[in-house]
């Protein structure tokens, strides 16, 4: 095992990784930007080093500064957390050259999974079901028609060179295909100089289901079951849980096994999450993408399996073998996570900065079934430069209703003053019929917000006003 690890992140995940290091007897070095100079989690680290200015570009995203910090503090390995450089294949490759072990998969895996087309091809090759559509770009109306007859309707035309919603066109009916194709190719050719398209079935109101995997460098792979993260706003997950109410235990086990085998075929190493969309129309699960890093919502899996995912990330990086086989993994009970963000849900989720004046958590001792992952302390100043995540609250109970009730009680017992938080929203969503009955899809939260008269984003709020 490494003697010292650089934790190349901030906030709650930096605190989480530091704890995992200490559990393994490893020293943790925290990095911080000028804006995070007083962050309470820095006190938990064995050493701390400033890597630059507030703007992430000049600190948490500055590859040279972080590598230099790792060398200066004599670290052997580096944990990237999530976000920032965690999915930069270039950074992973550079760490390798610098002989700083990147706690994550090989650069090549990160690169493949970071490229939508390459990822889709890899998934097909590994035997995972993908959303019906073309694997290679198609050009010309006849080819698009042919592809459309195979995918079925509704479908979506996606420009090869597109991104951020540009060059995308939804087609509900064969009669619209020609005109929509013309518009889409025209847009794409004008914007990106390339008019070729991918054709893909459009899935409405799907459910977001993902599988956590761990793989060592010796070809041993386990899955730790699925998580459902359908409660989302603008692709931002808010509530996650495991097991998914959409899957029977038998289906869940078979699905996990399929993913486990696919990951073994890919030769992947480290912790990873394979994301799927459950199509309500056909009840099929389709591969969306793979996240080659630790996920924000990993604690629900830890609560139900007893496996410390971060600890195993470190062990795998240090060439240890997985200490257990698939058969050793028992999933117990139900866990739910709520992301407590410094955002005002009644004001279009506008991110807020400011000082935390009051901070009270529910009991989180052994047997309480509640875990809080956070870097907050009373008096903490929330900086305006970064992601607004303040804390993650996780509630575990033998069954789903119990977990919901415990979460509601825990949220009620929580007091955070000084900045608005998403706690009121969580309480309302958890208690909604849609969530309670376990039928929520990725559209549900937006529908609830509309019903309650809450704007879905600051921009939407302004339109209302």
């Amino acid at each position: 095992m490494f003697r010292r690890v650089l934790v190349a992140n901030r906030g709650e995940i930096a605190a989480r990784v530091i704890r995992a290091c200490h559990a393994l007897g490893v020293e943790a070095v925290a990095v911080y930007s000028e804006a995070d100079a007083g962050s309470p989690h820095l006190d938990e680290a064995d050493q701390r080093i400033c890597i630059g200015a507030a703007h992430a570009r000049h600190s948490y995203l500055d590859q040279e500064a972080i590598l230099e910090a790792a060398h200066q503090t004599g670290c052997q390995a580096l944990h990237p957390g999530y976000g920032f450089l965690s999915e930069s294949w270039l950074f992973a490759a550079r760490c390798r050259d610098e002989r700083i072990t990147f706690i994550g998969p090989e650069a090549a895996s990160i690169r493949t999974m970071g490229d939508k087309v390459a990822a889709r091809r890899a998934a097909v090759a590994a035997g995972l079901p993908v959303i019906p559509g073309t694997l290679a770009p198609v050009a010309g109306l006849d080819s698009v028609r042919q592809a459309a007859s195979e995918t079925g309707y509704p479908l979506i035309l996606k420009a090869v060179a597109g991104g951020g919603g540009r060059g995308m066109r939804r087609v509900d009916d064969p009669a619209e295909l020609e005109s929509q194709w013309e518009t889409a190719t025209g847009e794409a050719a004008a914007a990106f100089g390339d008019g070729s398209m991918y054709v893909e079935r459009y899935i409405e109101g799907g459910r977001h289901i993902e599988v956590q995997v761990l793989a060592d460098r010796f070809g041993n792979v386990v899955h730790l079951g699925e998580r459902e993260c359908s409660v989302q706003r603008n692709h931002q997950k808010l509530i996650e849980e495991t097991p998914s109410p959409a899957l029977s235990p038998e289906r869940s086990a078979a699905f996990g096994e399929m993913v486990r085998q696919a990951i073994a075929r890919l030769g992947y190493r480290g912790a990873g999450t394979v994301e799927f969309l459950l199509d309500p129309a056909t009840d099929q699960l389709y591969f969306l993408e793979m996240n080659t890093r630790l996920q924000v919502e990993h604690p629900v899996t830890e609560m139900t399996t007893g496996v410390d995912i971060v600890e195993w990330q470190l062990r795998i990086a240090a060439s240890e073998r997985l200490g257990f086989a698939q058969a050793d993994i028992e999933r117990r009970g139900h866990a739910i996570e709520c992301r407590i963000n410094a955002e005002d849900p009644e004001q279009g989720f506008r991110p807020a900065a400011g000082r935390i004046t009051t901070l009270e958590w529910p009991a989180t001792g052994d047997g309480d079934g509640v875990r809080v992952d956070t870097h907050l302390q009373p008096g903490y100043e929330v900086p305006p430069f970064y992601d607004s995540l303040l804390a993650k609250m996780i509630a575990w109970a033998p069954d789903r209703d119990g977990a919901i009730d415990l979460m509601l009680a825990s949220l009620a017992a929580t007091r955070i003053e000084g900045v608005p938080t998403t706690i009121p929203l969580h309480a309302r969503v958890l208690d909604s019929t849609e969530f309670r009955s376990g039928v929520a899809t990725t559209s549900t939260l937006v529908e609830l917000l509309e019903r309650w008269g809450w704007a879905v984003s600051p921009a939407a709020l302004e339109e209302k006003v």
Partner: protein
Amino acid sequence: MARVTLAPIGRPQDQIATPEELAASAAAFDERRADLARNRAEVATGWGDKYIARVHELGKLTAWERISRLADPGTSPLPVGTFVNHGDRFGERKLAAPGAGVVTVFARVCDRWTMIIANDNTVASGAWFPKTPEKIERAQEMALGLSVPVIYLVDCSGLFLPEQGRTFAGATGAGHIFKKNSLLSAAGVPQIAGVFGDCIAGGGYMPIISDRVIMTERAYMVIAAAALIKGAKSQHITSHSIGGPDVHVHASACADERAPDDETALAMIRAEVAKLPGSAADYYRHGVASAAPLHDPEEIAALLPASLQMPYDTYDLLARLVDESRFWEIMPHTGREVITGIARIGGLYAGIFANQPGLFDHPAHPTEKRSGGILYREGIAKLSAFSRACESDGIPMIWMQDISGFDIGAEAERQGLLGLGSNLIYTNSTNRTPMITVILRKGSGAGYYAMAGLPYDPVLQISSPIARLGVMDGRTAAIASYNSQLDDEFEIPADTSEEQAERIRAGMSAVQEKLEADMDPYTSARRMDTDEIVDFHEIRDYLVATVEMSYQTIGRRRIKNPRIWSMHDLEILFES
């Protein structure tokens, strides 16, 4: 610190030039690139469909069909020598010999790189034309330099007799192929031959020196064909009856196995290759896989200015050739008109030597600038030191030439550039680690020699579609030829009569035109002054292949692990 730390290099296209400028640059080479594709397609069809049909009627496959069945599915063989004899005509009937009637390609067979040498049976039944022996010998030299197995696909009617005087008796005449067969064998390079048809006279030595010889039922090998044997007709003697598999597989033991047809023989050759040790390349990757550049090689054409006189940034070029667009520059602060350093290509370490165009500060005269693409004192020393370090460490060397020549003038002579250049020449001449040379735009004068041009035995030299090889450019040569009649500024003196001036102008432009035509890449390729013309986006493919081949065979040459490279010494000595 024995780390090899590769730093990102190069800029995205949109930071190099405007979309309009990029499009204009790319368009400037469109014609050249289209010509290349068309010329290649033409060579690949040999003498054309009629002759392809004739091969098929005989129940045989063409050379290219044989190659595609030998190569691993999904891989693309990389041809060399495609344009040997391009445009030349032979014999009284002025016959063309596309590719000199032989196909030489690097191909992956059972996950190993091989050199395949295949007589083109759609060109005069695979006869050997002038330059056919030299092309085969060059392919054998590449295989020897890279230690990769050679596969001969023999289907050859003998020397093209009307031109036998040009292919027989000289130092590189046909017989030298068999000497090369022997040297390959002596050096432990595996050779496997498939005989698919005629194999007459000296041609017979080529398969027989091979470790394995497989004959199809249509094949025969004879010292002299039946046509030369008295009484052959009355005795029903055919070349096949005296030299077919019945004789050579069983009676003479000159061949090993018989095969019913081409397909079976090719499968048997693959089975033999599979028995050889696998490639060691992955061992030498040190746990890393081959990775595409971050910046697309397809962008190279757009980043080269339309005018050969205009500079570009070589880092942008290298960023489109090397893995992940990452590079460890060695000695970055001295001789900046040449760039030396280490990159991964196909996951394997390679040394890069490249010219950098543009203007640079003059090291001795702080107020002056001098142009890149020229070899000066510091740059020559840097190339020599880096070449020796690569040789010492066993790192294959890639020489990226865009070079106008050596610095000239009184100062250059006093500095002894002749001596420094000779040092570099000596170093490269005695290198045993594979060198690969790429002529990007210009390979001129002594610079072409000093940077491992073909006379210095690189295992491969490729030219881009715009590459020009020559002692000097046409204009300079015209000035040199007419120097006694020009003034100090190389202009025609004002007191020259109009008639005389016109004569000088005409003479100079004739010299210029002749030289410009000679510098065309097809002229170089036709004469075997370069091994292949390669489109910009294919340069990386050839580099990946040759670097992989350099590391394929274990135990044949010195390959140090990166901890003990002499590169580290250079880095430390040239710090700051």
